[in-house]
């Protein structure tokens, strides 16, 4: 009897191990009705170009319209693999890695079949539909392995739990860098954490801000954590939007008096604007703050360095008519527009040169924000909307890219990256300059998600959504991805270690 029980348990363990290690490979339907359209999969991975180290591109058909989905992947070496369970296609990471290796620099073909639920399609019976096949091109260039972002409910006033998280883009692993509950000592006011930033995509020199309760800027300097107060008598505020110098222990910050207003009717819902803003330079080694720009009539914001560290780029508002100066900013916020400027920087003297206009957005009746220079120094990437500095709430906002070398530069076509009628903002380059990342509210105009686009020889390919293990994760997560930043390595310091600098 005991032997039987033991064999039974052994059998159970074996079956469990078997099921956990192997994916379900369903058969493709014997017969199906052909449709001449691409499948309406979510996320839309049809004909995208992806990095050779990306996590599995799991997707699904709409659950209300379909009850089952089967996908067949054909690799360039002729291998056929089928996936699908319910309406979801979830590819095991090890099998996906093999597919990517086989398809590096080439394309994989994806055929999708969907079994309709019947009622949704006006038929009594459900039936299998076969869709036009699509390709996924696998680029030779990898993407930076890590990505960090703040997860937060779409803005408004109140917040509760907030975290800065890091995600391994080559897998689905997500871990916490810091959260706002660990060190908050003021229950009434709470704590806000924001603006994580890294030097040269590495994490041994990084920072993030902690506001309100136990406030300060947490700086990691060669792996050592400290908390500093960047507010000085002569600055508007403590540091806000940061940019690490690529080689020196210097950080450019804007200092801002930022406010938030709420539209009563406008679909943009929220308006974030600066009442005042200047630029400062913080020396990590000496804990000293130097003013870079502080024109009280203009707003300077969003500093960023050129990859060689010889230029500081930033946005500056265009002077407003005299009659508006004393009015409530809420009556003329739509007239505030920003151009992109730069100043040379001499590392030896810490001196800045004369200001130089790089992009005159206002002359096109637009406002340019969040500049980022490509790692090769040839391209300028930024977000552009009709007005203001916070384009993630502006439906018309798009990402713009222009070459820096041309004497008469014209925009690079980014229609494949941008969405139509939804906010696209916070652009950035991967460390090899081949992947553009942005935050976009294109899925529903409310929750921002991270999108990537392949950039090669001045051309951007169709953007694709950050893959998730469960493709429905993006539906169920009622938080926005805020300030996505590439990293070539994870943050090694634990939440607990970070929290110790608050004690």
């Amino acid at each position: 009897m005991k032997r039987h029980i033991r064999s039974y348990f052994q059998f159970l363990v074996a079956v469990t191990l078997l099921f956990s290690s192997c994916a379900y490979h369903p058969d493709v339907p014997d017969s199906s009705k052909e449709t001449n359209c691409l499948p309406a999969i979510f996320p839309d991975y049809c004909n995208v170009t992806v990095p050779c180290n990306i996590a599995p591109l799991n997707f699904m058909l709409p659950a209300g319209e379909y009850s089952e989905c089967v996908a067949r992947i054909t690799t360039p070496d002729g291998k056929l693999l089928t996936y699908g369970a319910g309406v979801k296609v979830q590819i095991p990471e090890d099998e996906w890695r093999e597919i990517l290796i086989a398809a590096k620099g080439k394309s994989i073909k994806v055929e999708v079949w969907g079994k309709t639920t019947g009622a949704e399609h006006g038929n009594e019976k459900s039936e299998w539909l076969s869709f036009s096949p699509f390709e996924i091109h696998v680029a030779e260039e990898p993407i930076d392995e890590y990505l960090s972002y703040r997860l937060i409910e779409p803005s408004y006033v109140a917040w509760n739990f907030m975290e800065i998280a890091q995600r391994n883009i080559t897998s689905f692993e997500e871990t916490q860098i810091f959260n706002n509950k660990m060190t908050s000592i003021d229950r009434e006011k709470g704590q806000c954490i924001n603006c994580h930033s890294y030097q040269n995509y590495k994490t041994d020199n990084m920072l993030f801000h902690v506001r309100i309760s136990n406030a300060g800027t947490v700086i990691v300097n060669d792996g050592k954590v400290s908390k500093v107060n960047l507010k000085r008598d002569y600055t508007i505020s403590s540091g806000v939007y940061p940019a690490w110098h690529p080689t020196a222990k210097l950080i450019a910050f804007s200092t801002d008096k930022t406010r938030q207003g709420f539209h009563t009717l406008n679909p943009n819902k929220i308006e974030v604007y600066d009442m005042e803003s200047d630029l400062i330079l913080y020396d990590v080694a000496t804990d000293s703050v130097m003013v870079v720009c502080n024109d009280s009539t203009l707003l300077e914001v969003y500093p960023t360095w050129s990859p060689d560290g010889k230029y500081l780029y930033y946005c500056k508002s265009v002077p407003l008519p005299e009659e508006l100066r004393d009015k409530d900013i809420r009556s003329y916020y739509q007239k505030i527009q920003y151009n992109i400027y730069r100043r040379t920087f001499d590392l030896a003297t810490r001196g800045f040169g004369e200001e130089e206009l790089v992009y005159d957005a206002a002359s096109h009746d637009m406002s340019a924000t969040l500049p980022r220079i490509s790692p090769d120094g040839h391209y300028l990437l930024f977000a552009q909307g009709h007005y203001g500095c916070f384009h993630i709430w502006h439906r018309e906002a798009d990402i713009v890219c222009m070459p820096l070398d041309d004497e008469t530069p014209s925009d690079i076509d980014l229609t494949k990256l941008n969405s139509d009628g939804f906010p696209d903002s916070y652009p950035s380059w991967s460390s090899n300059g081949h992947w553009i990342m942005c935050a976009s509210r294109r899925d529903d105009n409310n929750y921002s998600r991270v999108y990537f686009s392949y950039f090669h020889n001045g051309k951007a390919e169709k953007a694709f959504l950050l893959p998730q293990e469960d493709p429905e994760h993006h539906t169920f997560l009622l938080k926005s991805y805020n300030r996505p930043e590439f990293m070539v390595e994870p943050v090694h310091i634990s939440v607990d270690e970070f929290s110790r600098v608050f004690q």
Partner: protein
Amino acid sequence: MEKMNKTSKLSDIILYVSLVAFFSFVVYALYINQEVFYTAHDRSEFFYGATFLHSLMSKPFGLMQYVGAWLTLLFCKPAFGSVVMMLVWILIGWVGTKAFRLKGTAVALMLLPIACLLTSVVDLGYWIYIYPPKGYWFSQSVAYLLMLLLLWVARATPRRWHLAWYLLALCAYPVLGWFALLFVISLALTEKPSWRELLALFLLCFTASTWRTLLYSNLKSDEVLFAGFPRFITPLDSCDRLSLPFWVLGVVTVLIPLCSKYLTKWFVPVLCAAVGVIFTLSLMFRDQNYLKEMRMVRYAYDDNWKEVLNMAAENPRPTTTMVFLKNIALMNEGGLLDCSFKSGNISFPVYNPDTIHVGFLEISSPLAYYNYGMTNEAVRLNFENAIQKGFSPLYLKMLARCALAKEDDKLVERYTTILRHCPFYADWQPAPVSEKVKELQASYPDELTGVENSDSYLVNSISLWYKTDSKLASEQALFYAMISCDSHRFWPSLRNYLMKHIDEDFPVHAQEAYILFIDKFPEEKRMMIPVEETVYNRYKQFCETLARLVKPGKTIGTVAGEMGGEWGDTYWYYYYFGRQYSNIAERKDNEVQS
């Protein structure tokens, strides 16, 4: 022998009668709290799938909270949810007798833990709107049941195995939270102390800190230490009273194995049942307005405006929420300017023995904003509530309706998809946007506002709609100009209202306000409109009575009380004795600061 048999039979009868009496009381307590349970489901966050599960599992007791949150959704049909809850408690009673090896009348000791669990779901009061921990309604009962099952199985094994059970329980701390510790103590106390028990109790002291180091280093120590133990703390308030049932539950659980041998007298069941009932009754939150308000909110969310009006008619002491919902119902059913003041616009504070501030914002302001076509504000308030309290069905339903009103189809799809994974919501669809909401939504210009969320902001905003082209909005603007007792807004509102309502009767309350403002502010620019003689004569009588009753030494409250019976149905009475939103023009300037 015969005498012993007789005594035993009598004890059995007393036991059964006590059990029946106690469970009858449980049924009664659950029955009168049906509205509370519906509200509990409506305001309890649950998401199907890994995202929500992972977020809960990142804390100890998370799995129990997930199970509890799912079961709470059964309260969508309150009777069904109550039956399930009762079954869990009956199981607790039965398993408890096995786990503690209770015999005879000592079986009734299990009524005490059940009374604690019952108390914990009927004592919340207005905390239900603020901060019940996730899965609160079922998680404690389910975890306690699991703990008792574990205890039953553990006690069925030889004593030398107990060390393994202690270790297993300490390993189960992430799942069972504080119940794992309770298990260890309970098991240790059922046996004569030996090195095993001492070791277990020693290890117990380090369980929380060990788990924090191993798994929960990104949590505060107290979050791990009090794993699953309900504590009622918000950024502004805290309440120890609501944790009392759980402290008692813990103490009773520890005491049962120690005392059960001595509690075998015939009166023990009567005593246990009585103590259980008294304990629950002494902590149960009882207030008729609390329940009526919940029912009214439920009807309003279902757009059942007739029932809202029926409930308003029955209530002499409405809360702010009730007044707003009644006026929205009158907007939808008609007769706002003829009936509103007759049914009372003076609101009374909620009965709330705790320090927590619960008001219109927490209870129903997103619904009010939505119905007044102020959809952006409704979305914002829904969000702000949901961020603090969780994206429960209530907020998801309202967000879906707002998204539909804003024609954000993708957002409607997102919220509907989430809801459809919840029990009883498989076919849920947001109600179509009413023509009234559409009309109001299109009747005012866009503005950039600050952090507005009060009932006074609502009154103030709508009273500023006096330039609107919408017939419906002009009625609302006039009504809220009257509510704010602001003659500067009243006159343009009245002018606009009359232009939009040509050839219609001049509503009674508007006539009352017109007569009063002409009388009170004769210098203001006004218009001459015929009014009914009876209304005019009644105003004269009102003024005479007022002049007669107002005497030095009398308070406003006294005069209001004396005049309420005859004049309580008029706008004049509200103007003199009930105004709550006057001088808001000045306040507004402060409020709109970002």
